[in-house]
């Protein structure tokens, strides 16, 4: 391995240590990642994790950190632990100085006049922002194929999906194009990509990370969270972005727990870990089920008590989610009308009225999946249907919350596979929305209940050799438990594998340079 190769494979925590010790500079690290992006992200078979690369600004921030470090003194002492550690940001999160597209044509070329709160916090920590990552349009999808800018490829198999909607962030981290990334999770958009790319992703407790500046899909479900290669790295990043924000009314006033300390606790002895009966078994790929069993075995050996819990209302969770989410989305996306910013399309013929300009803009600017959800949500909120659809879905939401409350009386942490299958081939489910929606069956309940969830690599499925994700769930505001259990499980698994799972991923540089076997693109981009 070259020196650069070693540098980009360091965890964020390890890189931070080397930066602090002066063994490597932030400019070197940032440049190494930019080189890696140039090497594997573009071209016909490139990963396509990045929609925009922010090289100049990232290097400038890196140089600033290096200068502060070199000068020493109080300012160097005061540097954040992650200062100089580069990061990628999902393109649903607004940034000054870079375009923000939400993966949609309707925002092509739009530059935000303000920074999201989480971006402000990254800047305050002096983390160089490498660029903006690909996603399903407005985060609507489970495969990143619904991006208007083409799909992202899974670094484990370039002909497979990287999960979604945050496939860009997960793939960037898995492909060593970034040590850290931000994602957003409305129904699993951080955790499911984490599962299928062999990375770690966390959906924090609803309200524990500010949503200000995350382009809303479903306001009551959306949550920004960390994407990384290790549990500790996610804890470090979560600690940067979390905490109260007066600009988000749903932001919790509670101070953030010490998540990094939790990730370093190192034991699960006596902890009650609950298997959710409804979230494994039938409908789950055999290889996924096997890795899940392995994880349980390891936790048991480490002293955890494994219990089984039942959440009977989870059978309605997917249905409720696909009413609440589109309902909120139909309203949240109404602002994209061509009047104030973004794409404006004039009708080709006929009267030039505002209604027709709005209509033409939205018809041309939104992709099929977005339109599908807008139509669904508009219908669900309509007079005469509201009670039957939105109203009933809200009741299910309450029932799901009660199921969790009951489960957490007998278990400290719940566990399940993150996704029912490993990564499926690009294009396979593009024409079958219901099959696509089923990917999120295990992740959605946490969003409905507002509780935190973490996905970490559980190994490779026997039948296809692709990563399997293990999901941990904790009660609201108990994110620390996830880091504690996650870090223990991770170290047990890595001991078994003899190193991180990602070391067994294929050599990308060779793969992306290889021949184009199939051309599978986003239908909406064509």
């Amino acid at each position, binding site marked *: 391995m070259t020196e650069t190769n070693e540098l980009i494979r360091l965890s964020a925590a390890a890189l931070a240590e080397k930066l602090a010790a002066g063994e490597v500079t932030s400019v070197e690290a940032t440049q190494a990642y930019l080189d890696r992006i140039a090497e594997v992200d573009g071209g016909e078979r490139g990963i396509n994790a990045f929609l925009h690369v922010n090289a100049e600004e990232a290097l400038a921030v890196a140089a600033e950190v290096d200068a502060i470090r070199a000068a020493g003194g109080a300012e160097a002492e005061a540097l954040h632990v992650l200062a100089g550690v580069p990061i990628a940001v999902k393109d649903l*999160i*607004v940034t000054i100085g870079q375009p*923000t597209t*939400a993966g949609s044509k309707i*925002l092509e070329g*739009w530059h*935000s*006049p*303000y920074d*999201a709160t989480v971006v402000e916090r990254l800047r305050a920590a002096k983390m160089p922002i490498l660029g903006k990552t690909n996603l399903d349009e407005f985060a609507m999808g489970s495969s990143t194929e619904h991006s208007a800018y083409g799909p992202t490829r899974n670094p484990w198999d370039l002909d497979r999906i990287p999960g979604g909607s945050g496939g860009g962030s997960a793939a960037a981290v898995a492909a060593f194009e970034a040590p850290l990334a931000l994602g957003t999770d409305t129904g699993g958009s951080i955790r499911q990509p984490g599962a299928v790319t062999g990375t770690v992703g966390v959906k924090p407790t609803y309200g524990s990370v500010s*949503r*200000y*500046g*995350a*382009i*809303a899909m*479903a*306001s*009551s479900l959306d949550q920004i969270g960390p994407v990384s290669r290790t549990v500790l790295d996610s804890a470090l990043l979560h600690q940067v972005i979390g905490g109260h924000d*007066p*600009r*988000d*009314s*749903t932001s919790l006033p509670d101070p953030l727990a010490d998540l990094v300390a939790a990730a370093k606790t190192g034991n699960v002895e006596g902890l009650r870990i609950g298997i959710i009966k409804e979230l494994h078994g039938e409908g789950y790929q055999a290889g996924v089920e096997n890795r899940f069993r392995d994880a349980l075995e390891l936790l048991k050996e480490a002293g955890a008590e494994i219990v089984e819990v039942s959440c009977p209302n989870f059978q309605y969770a997917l249905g409720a989610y696909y009413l609440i989410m589109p*309902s*909120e989305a*139909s*309203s949240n996306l*109404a*602002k*994209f*009308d061509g*009047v*104030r*910013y973004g794409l404006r399309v004039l009708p080709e013929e006929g009267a030039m009225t*505002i*209604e027709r300009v*709005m209509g033409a803009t939205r018809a041309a600017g939104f992709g099929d999946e977005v339109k599908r959800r807008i139509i669904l949500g*508009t219908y669900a*909120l*309509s*007079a005469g249907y*509201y009670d039957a659809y*939105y109203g009933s879905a809200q009741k299910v939401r309450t029932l799901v919350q009660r199921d969790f409350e009951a489960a957490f009386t007998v278990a400290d942490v719940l566990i399940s596979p993150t996704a029912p299958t490993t990564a499926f081939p690009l294009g396979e489910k593009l024409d079958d929305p219901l099959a696509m929606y089923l990917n999120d069956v295990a992740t959605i309940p946490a969003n409905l209940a507002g509780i935190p969830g973490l996905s970490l690599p559980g190994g490779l499925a026997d039948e296809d050799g692709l990563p399997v994700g293990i999901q941990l769930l904790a009660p609201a505001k108990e994110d620390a438990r996830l880091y504690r259990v996650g870090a223990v499980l991770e170290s047990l698994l890595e001991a078994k594998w003899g190193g991180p799972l990602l070391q067994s991923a294929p050599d990308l540089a060779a793969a992306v340079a290889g021949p184009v076997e199939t051309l599978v693109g986003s239908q909406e981009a064509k």
Partner: protein
Amino acid sequence: MNTDAILSFEEAMEKYDPVLGFEVHVELNTRTKMFSSAPNVFGDEPNTNVNEVDLGMPGVLPVVNKTAVESSIKIGLALNCKIAESCRFARKNYFYPDTPKNFQTSQYDEPIAYDGYLDVELSDGTVFRVEIERAHMEEDAGKLTHMGGATGRIHGADFSLVDYNRAGVPLVEIVTKPIEGAGSRAPELAKAYVAAIREIVKNLGVSDARMERGNVRCDANVSLRPHGRERFGIRSETKNVNSLRAVEHAVRYEIQRHAAVLEAGEPVIQETRHWHEDSRTTTSGRAKSDADDYRYFPEPDLVPVVPSREWVEELRATLPEPPAARRKRLQADWGYSDLEFRDVVNAGVMDEIEETIAAGASASVARKWWMGEIVGRAKAADVDPGQLGVQPATIVELARMVEDGKINNKMASQVLDGVLAGEGTPAEIVEKRGLAVVSDDGPLLEAIDAALAAQPGVADKIRGGKVQAVGAIVGGVMKATRGQADAGRVRELILEKLGVTV
């Protein structure tokens, strides 16, 4: 132009019973907007008092303005409403370019204040209780200006300009229950109700309450039913009636129009109506049915507003005296008779008189000026007296000049005309127009001699003890001096000259 047939008001009243309903929007005078930190200021350059939240930029979130909540609670309390223990905002979804998010954040089924009433006093002192259904919080929309058309409306316009300065300004919408039993006093009640709301929000200090600026805007619902029938007729909603007189006229007009429609055996169309101040008529707006579907749902970006009972009671304790109590106090303070005071209230100049007295005028002088001079001018100009723009200080200055004998009342009235015409301050106008009471006895005596000589018979009568006949001579002198003489002094001099002692 409008071609709707109307029945005479009297005939309409003979056959039908009007039912009213009002939605009054009050713009709050908070420092910042309902959900953003942008300034809430009227009249600035378009699109300057906006930030990313007001423009509905991607990713933004609303935060409720605490002062707006406080103001809303105060309004609710002043309207004798219950204050919700917990209430939410909802999204009212519709596409229109004055609404940056294409939904309005408004309270829907959970208003902050509900089930209240307001006792409204009519011109003869009758008190009419108007039941308040709710007062809820919402945000204002931006302001559209339609360019290139003849009417200023969107129809026929070439393009429209939008100013988002008003987008997000906090509003409280006060909705009445159906108002029955007003009969032929419905138009008067309409005006009195809106005036009462305006007075309340002004006294609370929560709104600038200037109707001409749209701080208080009224949508007036009118329906008719035959006498004796319980079921309501179909209503029309006349939008944005923005002066007290217009409210009265609009309700009156709609009663007459509905009556004509019903007389013709046709159904009233449920629709909004536009009010035209120039012709004092309404024209058809858009059809409005109860089935308008705004796809309301609870605003997920906001948490419920939960005013603690302690806070509500604190606010209740700070409420200013209710208007009825205030009127009672002012009448006593000013020493007006019941009739005098009622005239003042009905003329809508109570606040103005209060301000004028505060500026230094006596109660009687203030009343004399407002009731004797200004109300008449307002009527002639077809505006509310307050809209003429007469400053209390002007009246105080005029009154002082009269008192000091610099000018007489007739001149003072001319000076007021000058002030209203924008000619300057009273002092400047007196100077410019060369107005001054002639108090030098010399020229007066000459004029008196001439007047006595001209009417020898009158002079004899006065000498004979008919002192009241002196008026004819005074009149002659005043005419000769073109009104510049001090009439009192003239009278004294005449009587002195004729050797009459009174």
